[in-house]
């Protein structure tokens, strides 16, 4: 294929591609993201290909493997264009019906349709599913329209037009002004205004500048960046090229963690394809601007998501943060001015350039503009990736999109922002997703993790979990983070083991404050948030652990005792067989008894019992 040397070449190519695609009558869109890969999309796709061949429609029907659609729980997912019929939980055996009925005759296969968990009715198309209805899918919606490995797909839906516009008639100052006016803020966690960052980097002295895309996403349960880089790598790349043009950089890096093999692969293919078409390299689209990108793989450290640690890692040093008294926009990688942005931030850039700052600023709240992708997980009916406009209340996300609690239990809290964020109780659910308001409430938007917890979660245990994670992932360079997290964990472990005292709560608060204020990098500065927010909103749970010696949620092993509810137990004997310690006894069809001296509180009986007869007190 020839290199594109002018803006016109790009437009001609796009026109030809669109004409080509019109010849296809139908398209089966199959999600090939990591989530669907785990649930076996590959076998389904192979079976579909075979069926298409057998029915002789392979020349008019296209099977497109795309990035993540967001509804990972329902995978493998397929959507049939142009009607957008939505099939979920597909197995290879269903391939025949899909091709023979839906493709050839236009009939809908009822059993593959999505069932609304609230009303129980079958839903035919994607746009009617409540999970999708309440969202504003601006970034994610492109995922299903393109094959991430095909640059042609991206160009056909209008890709690289923003780049052409920029190179043709915008100066770096105009781009930065546009980004500034749009109010875009960093999506990686801090929420730093992107326009300001670019201005500072643009004004920083030096000819050699760098741009970096931070795809080292490590929060437990969050995968927004993976989904974007896997599903739409060219959009991220386009954003980076525009950013590089704006600040005057000639070299860029995508730092992606090695645990995301598909994202690494797709990013590499995207870079190669862009180079082939002349969208990367010397004299992009015939202009005087040259820029290239390399893909670097991370070594598996959470702390390398921190900007300076990431730069150290890219330089080949130990991935530890360094003091940031001079900002990285002036003294970044190899001590050169560097603009580092999150994947999602870069992905937002092309549409701001194309549609204008006003369009972007029209969505969201006063301080936070645009949309935000959130990874909604936990004890709710619908889990997956959701994209909402900034300012959407948490209540709407949890109950409308998430579908409410599982098994009729009451929702207690939501943990936002990953390990650096905090837990918000139900009465704070009217708070909107907004950088400043969530920060004031003791949590943060962060990179976008959202874990919903119900009454079966113990908040002390949640704090303990996150401290454990952070203790593992702290680099250990500075004292407050290394020893402070360790001591906080020690205190919380004492509390969950029933050895806590009320004085220790005050110590915990003071220590958390010290760690927050004195740590070297962002990891330490936010490490105490899970503790501080649970102490703020769920102090009574901590106190119940200490003064009453009870775990209200029945989670902390040392503080609970299992017993059999005589009204619910029907004497089936399942728990007797399940108990490996021989602690349960009883005759058939009679109420069983747990011997608490033998009971090791492993909880197996509780999970085995189908009648919820075994309970904790």
């Amino acid at each position: 294929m020839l290199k594109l040397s002018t803006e016109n070449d790009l437009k001609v190519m796009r026109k030809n591609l669109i004409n080509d695609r019109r010849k296809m009558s139908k398209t089966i869109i199959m999600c090939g993201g990591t989530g669907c890969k785990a649930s076996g999309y590959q076998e389904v796709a192979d079976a579909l290909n075979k069926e298409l061949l057998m029915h002789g429609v392979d020349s008019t029907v296209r099977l497109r493997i795309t990035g993540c659609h967001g509804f990972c729980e329902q995978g493998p997912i397929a959507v049939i264009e142009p009607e957008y019929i939505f099939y979920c939980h597909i197995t290879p055996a269903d391939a025949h019906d899909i091709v023979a009925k839906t493709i050839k005759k236009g009939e809908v296969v009822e059993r593959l349709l999505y069932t609304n968990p609230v009303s129980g009715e079958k839903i035919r198309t994607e746009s009617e599913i409540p999970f999708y209805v309440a969202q504003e899918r601006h970034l994610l919606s492109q995922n299903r329209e393109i094959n991430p490995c095909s640059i042609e797909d991206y160009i056909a839906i209008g890709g690289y037009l923003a780049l052409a516009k920029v190179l043709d008639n915008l100066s770096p100052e105009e781009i930065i002004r546009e980004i500034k006016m749009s109010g875009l803020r960093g999506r990686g966690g801090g929420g730093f205004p992107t326009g300001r960052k670019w201005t500072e980097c643009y004004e920083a002295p030096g000819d050699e500048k760098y741009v970096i895309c931070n795809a080292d996403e490590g929060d437990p349960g969050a995968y927004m960046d993976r989904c974007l880089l896997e599903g739409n790598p060219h959009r991220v790349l386009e954003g980076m090229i525009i950013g590089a043009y704006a600040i005057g950089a000639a070299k860029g890096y995508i730092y992606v963690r090695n645990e995301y093999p598909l994202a690494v692969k797709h990013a590499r293919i995207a870079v190669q394809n862009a180079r082939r078409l002349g969208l990367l390299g010397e004299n992009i689209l015939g202009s005087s601007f040259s820029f290239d990108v390399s893909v670097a793989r991370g070594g598996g450290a959470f702390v390398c998501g921190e900007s300076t640690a990431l730069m150290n890692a890219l330089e080949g040093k130990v991935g530890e943060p360094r003091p940031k008294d001079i900002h990285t926009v002036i003294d970044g990688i190899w001590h050169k001015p560097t603009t580092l942005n999150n994947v999602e931030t870069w992905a937002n850039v092309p549409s701001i350039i194309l549609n204008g700052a006003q369009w972007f600023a029209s969505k969201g709240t006063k301080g936070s503009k645009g949309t935000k992708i959130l990874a909604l997980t936990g004890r709710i009916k619908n889990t997956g990736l959701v994209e909402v406009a900034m300012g959407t209340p948490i209540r709407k996300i949890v109950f409308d999109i998430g579908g409410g609690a599982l098994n009729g239990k009451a929702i207690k809290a939501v943990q936002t922002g990953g390990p650096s964020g905090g837990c918000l109780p139900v009465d704070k659910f009217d708070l909107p997703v907004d950088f400043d308001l969530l920060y004031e409430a003791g949590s943060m938007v962060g990179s976008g993790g959202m874990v919903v917890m119900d009454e079966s979660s113990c908040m002390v245990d949640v704090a303990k979990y996150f401290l454990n994670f952070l203790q593992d992932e702290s680099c250990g360079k500075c004292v407050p983070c290394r020893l402070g997290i360790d001591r906080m964990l020690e205190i919380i472990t004492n509390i969950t083991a029933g050895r806590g005292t009320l004085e220790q709560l005050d110590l915990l608060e003071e220590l958390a404050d010290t760690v927050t204020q004195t740590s070297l990098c962002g990891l330490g500065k936010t490490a105490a948030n899970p503790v501080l927010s649970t102490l703020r909103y769920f102090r009574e749970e901590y106190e119940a652990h200490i003064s009453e010696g009870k775990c209200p949620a029945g989670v902390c092993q040392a503080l609970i005792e299992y017993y059999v509810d005589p009204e619910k137990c029907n004497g089936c004997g399942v728990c007797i067989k399940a108990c490996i310690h021989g602690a349960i006894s009883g005759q058939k069809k009679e109420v069983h008894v747990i011997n608490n001296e033998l009971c090791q509180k492993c909880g197996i009986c509780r999970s085995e019992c189908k009648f919820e007869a075994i309970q904790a007190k």
Partner: protein
Amino acid sequence: MLHYVTINVDGADIKAPKGTSVLDAAIEYGICIPHLCHVPGLSDFGGCRLCIVEHTVNGRTEITTSCTLKVYEGMVIMSNTQIIRRLRRNIAELLVAEAPNSRAIQDIAVRCGVEKVRYPFRNNDCVLCGRCVRACNELWQAKAIGFVGRGIDRHVEYVFGYRPDFCKQCGVCVQLCPMTIPPCDGPMKTGEEYLCGKCASQLMIAEAAPEKCIWCELGVGFSCGRYQGAKSR
């Protein structure tokens, strides 16, 4: 020719050559900011966080380490406010609970106002101040030792775990280690650690007459700061 800038530390205007750190400039003028990982002549990496100060820029005050902060004209630094003292005390408390078996750490704890240790003692041999690692890497360019592992597993270790040929056993690592001199009353056994605090009486002198601090009895354990040869026993 050296270019000098004027900075304000705790209300005192002091002159410092461009390129020096706030900590160096302050010590030069007899304002002792407690510190552990800082060694004159070695790079500063901001690990111990004891030398934190309040740095006011454009009306916003942020807490940062003075060893990594470079001086510039007109900067305003507060090194001894109530907040800083409290935070510094908490950090020193963490350190002394981790490694009470060191005179230097015990001295620092007293100097930073620790009166009671609220955590169980651990009696570790290393506080990972990184003095040895940086001296080995930067002073002698030997690079025989380095940090291995992360988080609580982090420790100082030879390259690949055994002493390489390029370690000439110069001993600079031992010399700079804050753990080599035991507390005044002798080494503490595991389970019998305590906060020594005997030199708390000297704190008055150190607080009232700042120049005393640099040559003061506190910190003799590993010779505080740049006046290494000034007083030793």
